[in-house]
C-alpha cells in the first residue's frame, strides 16, 4: 500500500497493459450506462466517443494469469461460504493424535497441526477470518475514506484543507505499528483487528479519492452540471464518483492483500485472531514453536497467503491497466 501512496511517478509496466484505454472511454461508459442524459453529459459523451473511435480502441482480453487469479479468489470465496458443507474434519474439536509430526498423508493432505487437528480444514476455515478482516477493513476504509476524499477534493476551501490535514496526520503513523497498538490496547478480536486495519486503510483510500476528485472536479462536465444548477451532492455522486471509482478499486484490491498480510503479521506478534478460531495468521503463529519438526504447519498457510496476495496484486494491476489509472498526481 505504501508503495502505491508514495510513488507519484510510477508508470510501472503492467501485465497485460492495454495501451491507452483512456479515461475518455471510462467517462463515456459511465455517462452512457445508467446516467440520466442531460445535455451536458451527452455532449461530453459525444466528444469522448469521437476521440475514442478516432483511435480505434478495443478492450484487451483478460489473460490466462488474470483468469487464474480470478479462479483462485473465487475458490477461496466458495470455500469460505461452504466450508461447513465440505468433507472436512472439524477445524477446532476433531483431533488425530497419531498423525502429529507425520507430515502430509492420505488422510491429512496438509498434515495436522501441533495438537492433531487437520491442517487443510483449519486453512479452509481460516479463509473466513482472513477474508473477513481483509475485505471488511478495506470496505470500511473504502466507504469512509472515499467519502472523506470526495468531499475533501470537491470542496476546496477550509473543509478541504481540514480533511487533508486529518489524513496526513493519520498517515504519519507507520501502518503496522498503528494497527498493532490499536489491537493491543483495544483487545484482540476479529472485529477489533478489522477496525484497526480499517483505520489504517481509510487515509490511504481517502488520499487516492481526494487526489482523483480534485482533478475530476476541474473538468468541463462538472462545470456544465454546476451551471445547470445541479446540487453539490448530485455532482459528487453522479459526475465525480464514477470517475474516481476505478482508481479506488485498484488500490482497494491491493489493500485487501495488504490487510491479509497484516493479519498474519499481527498474529506472529501475538495479537492476531483469537484462538481457537483459525485464521491463516494464527495457524502460522501456532506452528512456529514446532517449526523444526513440523514445518508443514507453517509452510502451507504461508503458501496460501502468498498465492492470495499474488492474485490480488495481479488483479489490482489489471484493474489499473484496464481503466488506465494514472498514478501521477495521486
Amino acid at each position: 500500500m505504501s508503495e502505491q501512496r508514495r510513488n507519484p511517478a510510477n508508470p510501472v509496466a503492467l501485465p497485460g497493459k492495454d495501451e491507452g484505454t483512456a479515461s475518455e472511454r471510462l467517462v463515456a461508459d459511465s455517462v452512457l450506462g445508467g446516467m440520466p442524459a442531460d445535455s451536458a453529459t451527452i455532449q461530453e459523451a459525444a466528444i469522448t466517443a469521437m476521440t475514442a473511435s478516432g483511435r480505434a480502441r478495443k478492450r484487451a482480453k483478460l489473460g490466462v494469469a488474470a483468469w487464474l487469479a480470478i479462479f483462485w479468489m473465487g475458490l477461496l470465496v466458495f470455500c469460505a461460504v461452504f466450508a461447513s458443507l465440505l468433507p472436512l474434519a472439524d477445524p477446532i474439536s476433531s483431533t488425530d493424535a497419531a498423525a502429529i509430526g507425520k507430515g502430509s498423508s492420505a488422510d491429512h493432505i496438509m498434515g495436522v497441526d501441533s495438537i492433531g487437528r487437520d491442517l487443510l480444514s483449519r486453512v479452509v476455515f481460516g479463509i473466513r477470518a482472513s477474508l473477513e478482516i481483509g475485505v471488511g477493513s478495506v470496505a470500511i476504509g473504502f466507504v469512509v475514506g472515499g467519502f472523506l476524499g470526495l468531499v475533501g477534493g470537491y470542496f476546496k476551501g477550509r473543509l478541504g484543507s481540514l480533511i487533508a490535514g486529518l489524513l496526513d496526520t493519520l498517515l504519519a503513523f507507520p501502518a503496522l505499528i498503528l494497527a498493532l497498538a490499536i489491537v493491543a490496547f483495544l483487545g484482540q478480536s476479529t472485529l477489533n483487528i478489522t477496525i484497526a486495519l480499517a483505520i489504517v486503510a481509510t487515509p490511504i483510500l481517502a488520499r487516492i479519492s481526494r487526489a482523483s476528485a480534485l482533478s475530476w472536479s476541474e473538468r468541463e462536465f462538472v462545470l456544465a452540471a454546476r451551471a445547470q444548477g445541479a446540487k453539490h451532492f448530485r455532482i459528487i455522486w453522479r459526475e465525480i464518483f464514477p470517475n474516481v471509482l476505478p482508481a479506488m478499486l485498484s488500490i482497494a484490491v491491493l489493500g485487501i492483500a495488504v490487510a491479509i498480510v497484516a493479519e498474519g503479521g499481527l498474529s506472529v506478534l501475538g495479537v492476531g485472531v483469537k484462538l481457537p478460531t483459525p485464521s491463516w495468521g494464527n495457524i502460522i503463529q501456532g506452528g512456529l514453536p514446532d517449526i523444526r519438526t513440523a514445518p508443514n504447519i507453517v509452510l502451507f498457510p504461508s503458501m496460501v497467503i502468498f498465492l492470495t496476495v499474488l492474485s490480488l496484486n495481479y488483479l489490482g494491476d489489471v484493474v489499473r491497466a484496464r481503466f488506465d489509472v494514472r498514478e501521477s498526481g495521486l
Partner: protein
Amino acid sequence: MSLHTFAQKVLQLVVVLLVVTFFSFCLIKLIPGDPVSKIIPFGTNLQKAQLRRDLGLDTSFISQYLTWLRDILTGDFGRYYNNNASVSSQLTKSLPVSLELMVYAQVFAMLFAIPLGILTAYRSGSKFDGATNTIAFGLLALPNFVLAIILAVYVGAKWKLLPTQSTLDPFPLSPIDNWRYMLMPTIALAVGQIAVYLRLLRSDMIATLQEDFITTAKAKGIPNRKILLKHALRPSSLTLLTVAGLNVGALIGGAVVIEVIFGLPGLGYRIYQAILAREYVALQSYVALIAIAYVLVNFAVDVLYSVLDPRIRHVRAAA
C-alpha cells in the same frame, strides 16, 4: 526552498507531532474498563493508587496529556510494572539493534535494486527484463514474515548455516558474529524492498533514457556504461531516494515481525514482549517514539526532496 515555505513546513511538523503524540496518548484510553486493574491486576491497593497517580487518572484529560508529553520530551518514558525497569534503559539497548537492521536492509536492497534496475531499463523488453519483472512481482507478494520463516526453517534449522534465535543480551558481539545473526533478518526485510525499488528505478530510468540529452550523449560517442551510470542514473534516482526515505515506516513495521521471528533483541522484540506481558505504559511509549521518529524522517525527506530538485517540486505543486 524559501524561508517562508520552510517555516510553514516546520509549523505543520509541530502540529502533526502534537496530534500524533495525542493519538499515542489516547491509546491507553482504549483499554476497555479500568486501565489500572489491567496493568497490575494483582497489585495491592497501595500500588494501584500509586499507578493511578502516575497515570494522572485523577486529573483532567488535557493535563494528563500535557504531563505525559512533558515526560516523553524529557526522556522519561515510564517504567515496566513487572520488574520496575525503566523503559529508557531498555530503549538504549534495543534501539541500536533495530537501527542496525533497518540500515542493513536498506543498503542490501539498494545493492541489488540499483544494478538490476539499470540493467532492466537498458535492456527493457528483453527476456532478462521480463524474467526480472516477473520475479519482482512474485517477491512483492511474498510477505516478509513468510520469507523469514522459510529462511529460519531451511537455512537456520535444517541446514544450520546461520544461527537463529539470538536473544542475546546485550546484542552487539564481534563483527562477524553480529553479521551472522543479522544476515537472515536483513534478507527477509530487504527482499520486498528490492522489488519495490527495482520497479521504481527501472521505470524512471526508461523515461530518462528517452530524453534528448541521452541522445546527445550517444551521438557524442560516449560509451553506454558511462551514459547509464553518469548521465541517466542521477536524474532517475530522485524518486527512488524519496521512496527509500518514506519506506522507513514500512520497514519499522516489518522489522517488528522479523525481530520476533529471529529473536533479535531490538525495539520490535521489546514491543512484542510488552504486548505479551500487558505492559501498556511501556507499549504506549514505544508506539509514541516510533511515531515521532517516523514523522521526523518524513519531514527530513520532504525538506531534502525540495532542496535537491526544485523542478520536481514545481511539478508536484502543479499536480
